[in-house]
């Protein structure tokens, strides 16, 4: 995206947000907070004083929709660019250390104990970032047909393993007898699913690296050249 377009988008966002805040203030001050506090839409009747709020909300919604469309277009464009790429992306293997963020998932035990909130278990997903280490070690590699074949093999294998784990967890935890309460069953399921997804992220990179490097007699040919 060009700098001018990005600046215009940011300015438009700020303007629409200011309009929204101003119309909210107007509604709270002069219009009995209509359309600011929740209302029953089936009993709604239009008043001229509602117009600023309706306009600003509509503009803001259109802006969000436009941003979403831009985001989807950018993702699709990146995907298409990926297909035409000849070399793997350049990545520092040290990014693999981000995998240690996965230990934040253990916070879930604490937050559950504190206020029955177990969303922190989802942080276990970060364990998948350990895969960046292997991706980094394969930075700037020519993606020839053997690489693509290995990548496909690694992806399929990693999906097979993670799907098998989720499937088993579904069967075992679905019985409802394995845990003391429904809460614990749900927690166990969330933990298993996030760990399985993290494993999938990691394995797809690790297996690709292993398939590409660990086949026997790699270096013996060097001396002959």
């Amino acid at each position, binding site marked *: 995206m060009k700098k001018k377009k990005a600046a215009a988008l940011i300015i438009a966002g700020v303007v629409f947000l200011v309009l929204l805040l101003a119309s909210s203030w107007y509604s709270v001050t002069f219009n009995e907070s209509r359309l600011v506090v929740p209302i029953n839409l089936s009993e709604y009747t239009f008043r001229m004083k509602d117009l600023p709020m309706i306009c600003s909300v509509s503009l803001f919604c259109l802006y969000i929709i436009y941003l979403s469309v831009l985001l989807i277009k950018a993702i699709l464009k990146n995907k298409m660019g990926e297909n035409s790429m000849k070399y793997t992306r350049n990545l520092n293997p040290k990014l693999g250390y981000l995998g240690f963020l996965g230990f934040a998932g253990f916070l879930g035990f604490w937050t559950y104990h504190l206020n029955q909130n177990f969303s922190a278990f989802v942080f276990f997903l970060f364990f998948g970032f350990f895969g960046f280490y292997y991706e980094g070690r394969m930075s700037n590699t020519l993606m020839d047909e053997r690489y693509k074949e290995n990548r496909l093999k690694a992806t399929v294998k990693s999906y097979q393993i993670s799907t098998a784990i989720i499937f088993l967890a579904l069967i075992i935890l679905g019985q409802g007898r394995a845990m003391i309460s429904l809460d614990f069953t749900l927690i166990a399921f969330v933990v298993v699913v996030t760990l399985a997804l993290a494993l999938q992220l990691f394995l797809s990179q690790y297996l690709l690296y292993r398939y590409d490097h660990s086949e026997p007699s790699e270096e013996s040919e060097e001396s002959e*050249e």
Partner: protein
Amino acid sequence: MPDFECRLKKFRQMKDMTQEQLAAQVGVRRETIMRLEKAQYNPSLKLAIDISRAVDAPIEEIFIFE
């Protein structure tokens, strides 16, 4: 493991090419050529044709399937 004999090394040496040069010519990595020569990798038809053109030898003489 693919079940075939590969005589690529012989034809490559006859053309006085290194693995690196052949790899660059057919658009793959040197490691891929190395595995091909050891019959540890089964190439696609396109790669087989590219290699046969690069070393000036018929495909059926480079890759021998039993």
